[in-house]
């Protein structure tokens, strides 16, 4: 087929971009070449709208071994151990085919991690759905959860945490973000940078089929009425083959045969081969007839753009082919030498003995478009004047009941019980806590991981929202006794071509950057997902942040369940009564405006570090950060999980009960301390100028508020657990 501008535009390229291609090549590309350009230059692979902003994120730190730019980020966790981790979106495919979309999302992120030599040790996920009343929500939720479980469970990697939210802005565009952590020895890390001439290029894994051709372009196109037409581009996951691929790759990696390795993710063979060549400043030559194909008569175009799953590309040392082949044969996987590295700095493809493409690698990578798109700054919304008298008339228990049973607060066990969270025998904190925690096998160390996002805050004020999410992950790590080390981020936004959406992106990224810099909590990997919208309606800006921290001695891990009657409960951090943008304001007052709670990075850091210090000294019996739903929601969860009650006496404050209990001021934690330790704890808090309120004492069965209002913990529990279960019946 002859290429012209119209065909280029059908490939998702812009007219200017097509002209640029012709100029770079000094000719019109052929059809295969055009396919390659369109895949490499689309938003998903080229980051053309986001690159200039992402550059501003802090990516260095004393624990960072590998920052963004590789398949995943890597941090040092002492003793020669390193943790490889990354989060990635699979939003569009999951909306079209929830089971396979979510499953292949999980498969893809695990490959990113084991391609670096790491054995995956924990999975997490951040999933966002439309309003529960929307007709598609239930099936999407069920399909996505089954898909995540279906893939992760079969791989034998525990899913230890995550986040689930509902908001009507996702009605036509759900979010499915999957995160994986892997463990590797520092001196056994593998990279994607090819090196050396005439080295064999090896294809391993599954065969190539016509799956997801143009999947990467789909991820960069917003949905319109013609979704149906895009349907066949969804891939089917094969977790069994991926498990074999994992074992085979790790077996080969134990030796010294591999020069570079890269999984075939978005844009399959195209992006993997080009990335390896580009990083190594080399050329690559591929004989497409050698690529193992599942279907007959596949064209070079199809082979290059197929997104069949469970495949890897490897550059081997010369002479290691036999040894490598033996391993892949043992695991019953395809293995083929399909090409070699060259000094031409071109990607050259052959098919039926003819050259079918020849493109300078740099035109695909360095010369890819980069845009500084127009963006609109957001103003901080004005504070809402809530009527105090109206607040005072609310019955606290009724409000609490409503909050605890609301879709975004309710217990998510229906979800995570379907994920194998205990396989590998090292899960010491299951889902349902503040972070998932797994031991580093055979050591005293453990890694904690959490994934969070707060789209409502980001929507109200992106800069504050961006900071807030980072801080929330920081708090979730500290709450389990882990020292936060680094984050990965998945930036889910609407169209970058719209100034509002681009503005949300730019300012969220700025907020994330500021928080990370201040907290010395760098970004080591991430992913951008734009065009999350149906027709003209974009989602709320949803940066999902995955935080990872280290617990040096896992026996010091903290959980959030209240432990013992008689112990004292304190709130760390100051409660100002900020209810604008709180769950309470939206749910009970139907108020959607106002600014999000302010983030004070000094307090955030100081409060968090002081709490870690208290944990180190063994003063803390349980801890939980205060987030959505405020203090009383957090306390309720601690009661429910610990099967203990509490007698609450709110400090004599100027603000009223409702504001005190449901405000979402930042930087706060709840801690449980024994009577004997209280004095010492207070001394340390005072010394560090950390604000605290003593708010209650643990008792046996009830929650009692200011000696007058009483509710049993069993009741609280039923409020909290019933909604999702009943919804999913």
């Amino acid at each position: 087929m002859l290429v012209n501008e119209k065909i280029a535009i059908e490939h998702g390229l812009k007219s200017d971009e097509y002209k640029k291609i012709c100029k770079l090549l000094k000719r019109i590309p052929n059809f295969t070449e055009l396919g390659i350009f369109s895949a490499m230059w689309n938003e998903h692979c080229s980051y053309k709208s986001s690159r200039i902003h992402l550059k501003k994120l802090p990516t260095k730190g004393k624990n960072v071994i590998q920052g963004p730019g590789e398949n995943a980020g890597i941090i040092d966790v002492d003793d020669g151990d390193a943790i490889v981790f990354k989060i990635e979106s699979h939003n569009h495919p999951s909306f079209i085919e929830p089971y396979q979309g979510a499953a292949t999302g999980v498969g893809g992120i695990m490959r990113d991690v084991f391609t670096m030599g790491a054995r995956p040790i924990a999975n997490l996920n951040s999933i966002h759905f439309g309003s529960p009343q929307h007709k598609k929500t239930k099936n999407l939720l069920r399909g996505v959860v089954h898909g995540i479980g279906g893939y992760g469970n079969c791989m034998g990697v525990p899913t230890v945490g995550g986040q689930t939210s509902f908001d009507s802005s996702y009605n036509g565009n759900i979010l499915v973000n999957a995160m994986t952590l892997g463990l590797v020895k520092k001196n056994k890390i593998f990279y994607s940078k090819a090196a050396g001439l005439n080295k064999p290029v090896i294809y391993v894994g599954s065969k190539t089929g016509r799956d997801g051709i143009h999947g990467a372009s789909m991820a960069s196109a917003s949905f319109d009425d013609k979704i149906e037409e895009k349907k066949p581009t969804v891939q089917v996951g094969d977790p069994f083959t991926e498990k074999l691929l994992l074992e085979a790759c790790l077996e080969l990696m134990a030796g010294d045969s591999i020069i570079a390795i890269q999984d075939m993710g978005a844009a399959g063979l195209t992006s993997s081969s080009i990335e390896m060549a580009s990083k190594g400043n080399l050329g690559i030559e591929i004989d497409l007839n050698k690529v193992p194909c599942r279907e007959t008569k596949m064209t070079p175009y199809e082979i290059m753009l197929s997104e069949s799953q469970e495949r890897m590309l490897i550059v081997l040392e010369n002479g290691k082919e036999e040894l490598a082949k033996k391993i892949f044969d043992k695991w019953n996987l395809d293995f083929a030498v399909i090409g070699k590295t060259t000094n031409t700095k071109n990607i050259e493809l052959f098919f039926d003995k003819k050259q079918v493409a020849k493109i300078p690698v740099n035109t695909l990578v360095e010369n890819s478009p980069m845009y500084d798109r127009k963006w609109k700054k957001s103003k901080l919304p004005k504070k809402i004047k809530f009527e105090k008298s109206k607040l005072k008339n609310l019955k606290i228990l009724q409000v609490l009941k409503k909050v605890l049973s609301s879709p975004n607060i309710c217990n998510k066990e229906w979800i995570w019980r379907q994920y194998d969270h205990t396989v590998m025998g090292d899960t010491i904190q299951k889902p349902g806590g503040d972070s998932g925690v797994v031991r580093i096998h055979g050591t005293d160390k453990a890694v904690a991981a959490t994934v969070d996002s707060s789209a409502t805050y980001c929507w109200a004020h992106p800069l504050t929202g961006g900071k807030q999410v980072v801080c929330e992950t920081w708090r979730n790590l500290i709450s389990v006794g882990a020292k936060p080390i680094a984050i990965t981020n998945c930036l889910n936004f609407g169209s970058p071509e719209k100034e509002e959406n681009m503005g949300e992106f730019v300012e969220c990224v700025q907020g994330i950057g500021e928080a990370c810099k201040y907290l010395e909590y760098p970004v080591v990997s991430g992913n951008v997902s734009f065009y999350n919208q149906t027709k003209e309606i974009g989602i709320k800006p949803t940066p999902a942040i995955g935080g990872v921290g280290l617990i040096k001695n896992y026996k010091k891990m903290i959980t959030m369940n209240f432990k013992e009657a008689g112990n004292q409960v304190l709130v760390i951090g100051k409660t100002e009564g900020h209810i604008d943008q709180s769950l309470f304001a939206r749910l009970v007052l139907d108020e959607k405006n106002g600014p999000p709670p302010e983030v004070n990075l000094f307090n955030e850091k100081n409060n968090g570090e002081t709490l870690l210090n208290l944990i180190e000294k063994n003063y803390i019996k349980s801890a939980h950060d205060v987030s959505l739903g405020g203090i009383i929601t957090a306390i309720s969860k601690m009661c429910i999980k610990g099967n203990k009650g509490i007698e609450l006496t709110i400090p004599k404050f100027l603000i009223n009960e409702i504001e005190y209990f449901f405000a979402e001021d930042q930087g706060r934690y709840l801690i449980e301390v024994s009577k004997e330790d209280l004095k010492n704890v207070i001394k340390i808090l005072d010394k560090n100028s950390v604000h605290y309120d003593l708010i209650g004492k643990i008792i046996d069965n009830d929650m009692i508020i200011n000696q007058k209002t009483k509710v049993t913990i069993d009741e609280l529990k039923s409020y909290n657990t019933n909604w999702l279960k009943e919804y999913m019946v």
Partner: protein
Amino acid sequence: MKISAIITLKKDVLDPQGKVIHQALDGMGFNSVNEVRQGKYFEIEVKEDDPKKAKSLVDEMCKKLLANLVIENYKIIETQ
């Protein structure tokens, strides 16, 4: 009456199950197999005696629930 629906993966869609079953059959010595594709089979008994109506009912079920037309095709057969 009883109506059956057979649901199969579309031609170009990967069938991981069929693939592994094929390998297993090979391993057991059945080496004259070219391909195995797995599908689903439903037998649905409906309160409807008119075959045409019964079939069109099952057709609707396939479209709305049983098959995922993104990746699957279906075929309806009268069983009894």
